[in-house]
C-alpha cells in the first residue's frame, strides 16, 4: 500500500532518464560532427579571411605581391619546383593501390527437393542411431534453438538411411552447387569463362584430387594461363581470405577478372557418431554457395556493385585454446567429426576484439577514434578495471553482414557491437532460410539486404566471418 507512492517516482525517474539519454544523443551527435569535420570547420574561417583579403586588395596589388615573390626565384628553381611536384604526384599515383570492384555475385538456391524439415531430421537421426536416444534429443534441442527454419537444405546423399557419403556423391554435390552458381553469375555479368584470369575456389571440408578449381576449369574450358587456387581447410571465415587473395593478385595483374567461389560441400562430413560436441555441425550446416566476380578493370567501375575498401584478417592460432576450438578428429568409436569446444563463444569474442582493434582506425570516423583513445588512456591511468569503450561502428557502416554461424554467434555480436535488431536482421534471416552455409553466408546476407531494397549508393558494408583456426576476418565494401 506504500507501493502507489513509489510508482510515480519511478515513472519520473524513467522520464528523467529518457530526457537525459535524448540530451546525450544530441551531445554525441554534436561532438561527432565537430570532430569529424574539424579540418573543414577550420578551413572555413581561413578561406573566408583570405577571400576578404583578396577582395580588399585590387588586381594590381595582387600582381605586385606575386611579382615581388617571383622575382626572388630564377627560372631553374621554378622548373625544379614544378618537376618535384610532378614527381611526387606520379609516385603517389603509382603507389596507390588499384581499386578492386565487385562486378556482381550469384547465390545458390537449393531445390526444395532437398529440403530438411525438423521432423525429418529428427527421424533420420533416430533411425541412424537407434541405440543413442540421448544424442537424438540433444540434436533436437540444438535444432530448436538454432534459429534455422524449415526450408534449409541438405545434399541428396544425406537424405538416405543410412547416410551414404561416397566420394561420387560429394562430387555430384560439388558439381551441382558450384556449376549452377557460376552459370548464374556468368549470365548475370555477361562475362565469358575465357575472360577469367584468376580463379579461387574455397571449400573447407572437401578437397578432392583434382581440385575443385580444376573441376571448374574443366567444365567451363577456361584459359590455360589462368591463375587458379583451391583453398581448403580454412573454415567458415574463408570468404574474406579468398577476397584478400584476389585483391593481392589483382594488384600485380592489371586489367583482369577474378572469380571467387565460396562454398561448403557437406556430403563427406555428416557425423555418424554420438559425441555431443561433434553433433552441432550436423544440425547447423546446410547447402549453399556464392560466386563473386571481382575486377580491377576501370571500365567496370560504372556497373560494379561494390568497391572493396579493406580486408582485415586476424588469426588467433598461436593460442592453444583457440587453435583447438574447432577441431576435426575421430571420436572414441572411430567416427570422424568436427568437435566444437565449449569456449567457442569467448574465443570468438577475443578474436573479434583483435579484429576490431585493427579495423577501427581504418574505418571509424575521427570522433570515435578520439573517444576510444581517451577511454584507453583513462583506463590505463585512472580506472584499470573500467569497461572498455566500444566504438560505435554504426557510424562507420550502414550494413552489417555477420557470419550466420548460429543464433548464439549473432546474439553475442549484436550485444558486443551494440547493434540494433534491424542491423542483424540480414544475418538472422539468412540463418533461418538457408541455415549455416559456412563461408558463403556473408553473401546470402548481402543478397538479403539488396533484395529488401535497403542498399543505397555510398552505403558501407562490413562483412565479419569467424572460422576454425581460430580466425576472425573482415571485409569492408
Amino acid at each position, binding site marked *: 500500500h506504500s507501493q502507489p507512492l513509489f510508482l510515480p517516482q519511478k515513472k519520473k525517474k524513467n522520464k528523467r532518464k529518457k530526457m537525459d539519454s535524448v540530451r546525450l544523443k544530441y551531445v554525441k551527435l554534436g561532438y561527432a560532427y565537430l570532430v569529424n569535420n574539424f579540418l573543414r570547420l577550420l578551413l572555413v574561417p581561413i578561406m573566408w579571411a583570405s577571400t576578404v583579403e583578396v577582395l580588399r586588395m585590387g588586381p594590381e596589388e595582387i600582381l605586385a605581391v606575386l611579382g615581388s615573390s617571383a622575382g626572388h626565384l630564377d627560372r631553374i628553381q621554378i622548373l625544379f619546383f614544378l618537376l618535384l611536384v610532378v614527381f611526387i604526384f606520379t609516385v603517389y599515383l603509382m603507389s596507390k593501390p588499384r581499386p578492386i570492384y565487385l562486378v556482381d555475385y550469384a547465390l545458390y538456391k537449393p531445390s526444395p527437393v532437398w529440403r530438411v*524439415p525438423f521432423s*525429418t531430421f529428427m527421424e533420420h537421426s533416430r*533411425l541412424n542411431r537407434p541405440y543413442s536416444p540421448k544424442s537424438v534429443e540433444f540434436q533436437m534441442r540444438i535444432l530448436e534453438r538454432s534459429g534455422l527454419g524449415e526450408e534449409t537444405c541438405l545434399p541428396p546423399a544425406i*537424405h*538416405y538411411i543410412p547416410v551414404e557419403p561416397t566420394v561420387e556423391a560429394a562430387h555430384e554435390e560439388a558439381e551441382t552447387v558450384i556449376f549452377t552458381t557460376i552459370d548464374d553469375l556468368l549470365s548475370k555479368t555477361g562475362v565469358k569463362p575465357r575472360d577469367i584470369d584468376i580463379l579461387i575456389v574455397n571449400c573447407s571440408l572437401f578437397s578432392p584430387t583434382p581440385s575443385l578449381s580444376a573441376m571448374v576449369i574443366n567444365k567451363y574450358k577456361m584459359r590455360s594461363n589462368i591463375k587458379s587456387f583451391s583453398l581448403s581447410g580454412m573454415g567458415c571465415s574463408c570468404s574474406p581470405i579468398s577476397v584478400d587473395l584476389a585483391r593481392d593478385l589483382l594488384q600485380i595483374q592489371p586489367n583482369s577478372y577474378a572469380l571467387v567461389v565460396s562454398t561448403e560441400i557437406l556430403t563427406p562430413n555428416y557425423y555418424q557418431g554420438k559425441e555431443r560436441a561433434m553433433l552441432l555441425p550436423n544440425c547447423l550446416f546446410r547447402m549453399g554457395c556464392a560466386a563473386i566476380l571481382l575486377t580491377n578493370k576501370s571500365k567496370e567501375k560504372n556497373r560494379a556493385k561494390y568497391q572493396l575498401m579493406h580486408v582485415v584478417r586476424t588469426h588467433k592460432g598461436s593460442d592453444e585454446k583457440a587453435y583447438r576450438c574447432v577441431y576435426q578428429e575421430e571420436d572414441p568409436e572411430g567416427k570422424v567429426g568436427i568437435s566444437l569446444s565449449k569456449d567457442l563463444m569467448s574465443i570468438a569474442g577475443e578474436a573479434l576484439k583483435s579484429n576490431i582493434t585493427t579495423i577501427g582506425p581504418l574505418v571509424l570516423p575521427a570522433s570515435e577514434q578520439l573517444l576510444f583513445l581517451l577511454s584507453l588512456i583513462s583506463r590505463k591511468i585512472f580506472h584499470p578495471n573500467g569497461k572498455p569503450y566500444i566504438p560505435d561502428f554504426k557510424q562507420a557502416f550502414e550494413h552489417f553482414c555477420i557470419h550466420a554461424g548460429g543464433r548464439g554467434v549473432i546474439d553475442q555480436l549484436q550485444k558486443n557491437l551494440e547493434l540494433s535488431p534491424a542491423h542483424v536482421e540480414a544475418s538472422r534471416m539468412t540463418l533461418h532460410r538457408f541455415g549455416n552455409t559456412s563461408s558463403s553466408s556473408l553473401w546470402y546476407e548481402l543478397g538479403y539486404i539488396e533484395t529488401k531494397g535497403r542498399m543505397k549508393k555510398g552505403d558501407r558494408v562490413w562483412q565479419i566471418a569467424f572460422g576454425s583456426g581460430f580466425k576472425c576476418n573482415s571485409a569492408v565494401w
Partner: protein
Amino acid sequence: MEQNQKNTTSPSVKVHSVLTIVSGTPVRKGSVCPLSPLDHAMAHHSLHLIFYYSCGSFDLDRIRPPLNDVLSLYPIVTGRLARDGDGNWHVKCTDAGVRTYLANADVSIDEWLRFAGADDERLLSPWEDLPDDPHIWSPFRIQITEFEGGGTAVGLSCPHMLADPTSATLLIKSWTEALHHEPIAHPPLLHPLALKPPPATTTSITSPVYYAAKSTRSEPKKSPKMASATFCFLDSAIKKSLSEIQSTFPDATPFDLLVALFWTRIARVKRSTWDQTPSMSFCMDIRRRLQDPLPDGFFGNALHFSQLKVGAHELECGDLCNVAELVHCHVAGLDLQDEFWSAVDWLGSRKDGHGKFASPFRMYGPELTCVNMEHMIPDESESEPFMYMTQFVKGQKPVHVSCHVGNSEGEGLILVLPSPEGGLARRVAVMLPEEEMDRLVEDKVILSLEPTFLLSGRM
C-alpha cells in the same frame, strides 16, 4: 531353397536404399488432420497398391521433384499418426515426408507377372505393421522396384485408416500429372467432417445391424493360407457372356456377371465347407452415389459394406442370370444415402465415456467379400480408368495394377478391377484359401470365358 525348375524358385527382391521424400513447401506448424469414424473403423486393415510398368526410366532424379511438388497438397501423407486427447487417432502434420524404398528384383517383369503369388507381391510394397509408437513411422511408404531387363513396379502402402483405394490411386495419379506438368485433375479434399451424417429419414436400414454383427464376430483361431490369382477377361468375352444374360435380364452389367460367375463357382469349390446361408459382403465406393456427391479427390475412406443373403439353391443350380439379377438389385437398390450415413452414425456412436472409439473390427471379411472398383472408370467412355492413367513415362500406361488389403484373410476376397484394355474388359483379383484356389483356376465355366492369368503363383 534352390529348385531346379526356373518357375518354382521364389523370386527375391532386395531393397538397396531407403530415403525420405519431403514436400516442397513447409506445412503450417501445428496443423492436424482428424480422422472420421469410418476411418477409425478401417484401422484393422492396411492398403497396398502396386503399379507395374513394362519399360521406361524411373530415375529418381526425374520422378522425385514432381512428388516433392505434389506432397505440398497432401499434408496428411507427410504427417505422422498420433493419439489425440481422447485417445483416438489423428495425423499430426509434422511435414516429415514419405519413406521411399529402392529395390531390385532378380527376375524379369514378364516372369513376375506370370508366376508371382500374393506372398511375392508383399515384397513389392513395404508391408509394415503399425508400431506401438508411430511418431517416427512413415504411414505412407513407397517402393520402387526395378526388374531384370527393364520394367518397374511402384508400390504404395498405407494404413487403411488414412486412405481407401481411390485416394491412394489418385495420389499416384497426381504425381504422374505433376511429372508431365499437367494440372492436377483431382486435388485432394482433406476434410473428414465432409463425412458428417445428415439426419436419417427412412427406418428400414440394415447397415448398423450388419456392422454390429461384424463387430461381435470372434476372430477365427487360425487364418487359412491364402493364395491369389488375377483373371483377365477380354472385352469380347464379357460382351458375349453379357449378351447371353441380357436376353433374360437386360440391365446386367459386367460387375453383375462377374460376381455371379465367381460366386457360383466359388460356392461349388467350397461345397464341403459350406454350412450356412451363403452371403456375400459388397464393398463399394460411395463418393458419387451420395445425394451430395463427394468429389473423387476426397481423401480418406468413403466406402460402404453391405450384405446380400441368397438361398443356397440359387448358387448351387449355377444359373448365372438369376444370381446376376439378385446382385444387381442389391447393389442398385441399396438406398446408399441412408444406409451409408446410418452406418457412419453407428460407427461414430461407438465411443466410451471419454470419447475414445471402440476398438476396430474386421471390415473386409472374414465372410466372402467382393470389392467393386469399377468406379475408377470415369463416366466419359473415352477416358482410361484412373489407375491406368498413371503414366510415369508419357505413353506408357501400367500393364497391371494390383490392390491388396492387409488382414483380410478369411473365406475369400474378390476385387473387380478395370482393365487397361478398356471397354467392358475387366480383371478379377481373387484371394481364396489355397486348395480352393487350385480348384477354381481349373473351373470349366470360368475357363469358358477364356481368361488369361496374371500373378497366379507358381502353378
